[in-house]
């Protein structure tokens, strides 16, 4: 992957491209699940490549991530999965409860809060993953194919939630192969990736 890219604070960016071109890798490089062999990645003042391991949680706490494979804890309930990130950040239980309820309402998960994640459908799992990523209102949101298992109505709902977060000043980067998704955010910047390179910058 060879990229030279600057994303400003508060921007809404769509990374568009077919499967296998490196969209996920690009996101993984940002939260350092993968390390670049050379070059520099600067995120919220952190130089990701040289960031010592003990400081890595500080970077990741600033990022909300919707993973393509959701990365939920299957034997925990929906509530516990969404609450996990808030517990990691040390929020008090009353706030956690309130925030989880708020998100579960927005994502139609209220009835499922006590259900184990392993008993959910793929679409429901994806919504839990979205709720978890939004829970702490992160300054940076990375979403990897966040609507791949959702119907049109819920996809729009999800993008609306991302837009709300973006309005609060957070940067949002959505990796998707679905070009139409970008139409719901007219102000967004679209970057087309092809074989690890930015092919086109479409405003």
């Amino acid at each position, binding site marked *: 992957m060879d990229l030279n890219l600057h994303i400003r604070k508060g921007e809404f960016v769509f990374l568009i491209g077919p499967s296998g071109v490196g969209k996920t890798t690009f996101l993984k490089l940002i*939260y350092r*699940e993968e390390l670049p062999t050379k070059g520099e990645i600067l995120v919220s003042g952190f130089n990701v490549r040289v960031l010592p391991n*003990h400081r*890595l*949680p*500080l*970077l*990741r*706490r600033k*990022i909300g*991530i919707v*993973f393509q494979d959701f*990365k*939920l*804890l299957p*034997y*925990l309930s929906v509530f*516990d999965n969404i*609450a*996990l*990130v808030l*517990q*990691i*950040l*040390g929020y008090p*239980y009353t706030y956690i409860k309130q925030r989880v309820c708020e998100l579960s309402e927005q994502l139609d998960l209220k009835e499922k809060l006590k259900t184990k994640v392993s008993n959910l459908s793929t679409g429901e799992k994806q919504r839990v993953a979205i709720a*978890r990523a939004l829970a702490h209102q992160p300054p940076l949101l990375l979403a990897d194919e966040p609507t791949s298992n959702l119907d049109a109505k819920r996809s729009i709902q999800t993008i609306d939630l991302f837009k709300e977060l973006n309005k609060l000043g957070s940067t949002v980067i959505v990796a998707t192969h679905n070009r139409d998704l970008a139409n719901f955010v007219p102000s967004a910047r679209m970057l087309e990736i092809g074989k690890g390179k930015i092919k086109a910058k479409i405003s």
Partner: protein
Amino acid sequence: MLSFWWKKVWQNIIHTLWSQIACFLPTTLALSTFGLFILIGINFNLYLKHWQRKIPIIAFFQNEPLTEKARTTLITKSEIAQIDYISSQDAFQRLKTWLKGKELLLEGLDKNPLLPSLEIYLKPAFYKLDFINHLVQELKGLPGVAEVVYPSYLFFLVTTGWRFLKLVFLLIGVFLSLATVFIIANLIRLHLQKRREEIKIMRLLGASEGFIQVPFYIEGLWQGVICTGASILLLKGFFTWINEQTKTLQIPFTIEFFDLYQILLFIGFGLLLGLIGSFLGLKK
């Protein structure tokens, strides 16, 4: 936060119930054996102290005035717990009691051949061979002393023998503690392996190593406490049974169990072993 960790520990326990049970049995067994050795030690020590009070150093004197004089000198020594003055007459009376039914043996005696003596009992802290030898030499140097006798083999058992036994018990204790730590460390390692994916997810969400490790430490502590508690119950049952048996068989013998302070100390020790086990398990 604490409620989250407790919840997490509880979930972990339920999630890994079989390995918890597999760990519980050998750990409880190791701690029970360890506790048993401590209790044997405690009881042995109690009986030694009991016997110590019955083993005197006896100094025989040529006449009674000198015996009395020596008694007033020795009584001031802080190492001595008690001095019994046995006159020739008392000694003869004792002999008569011992030979009850065989009084014929004493018939040929025209006068009391027994010497007056002092029976010296030491304070428990001074049952040390060095001190005993020193005291015996000092007694031999007193005016009018005919002979000093003491059961040296018993003193040897009380002093050196007990010290050796303590060392053996200590080695066994260390070995069993290491076994406990090893079992708990392996349990933690096993659970770490089982929850590899979960830990990876938590790291991706920004969890610090401390946040991830706390439930494992709690789990180790929990194992330590539960296994120590079970060991205490097991030993209590065993000791009650032994005491009942000795009562039934009319053996004048009672074995002591831990007092409350010792129970708390034992549980604390279990906690410590659990903590060390978790630490070693997480270290790798």
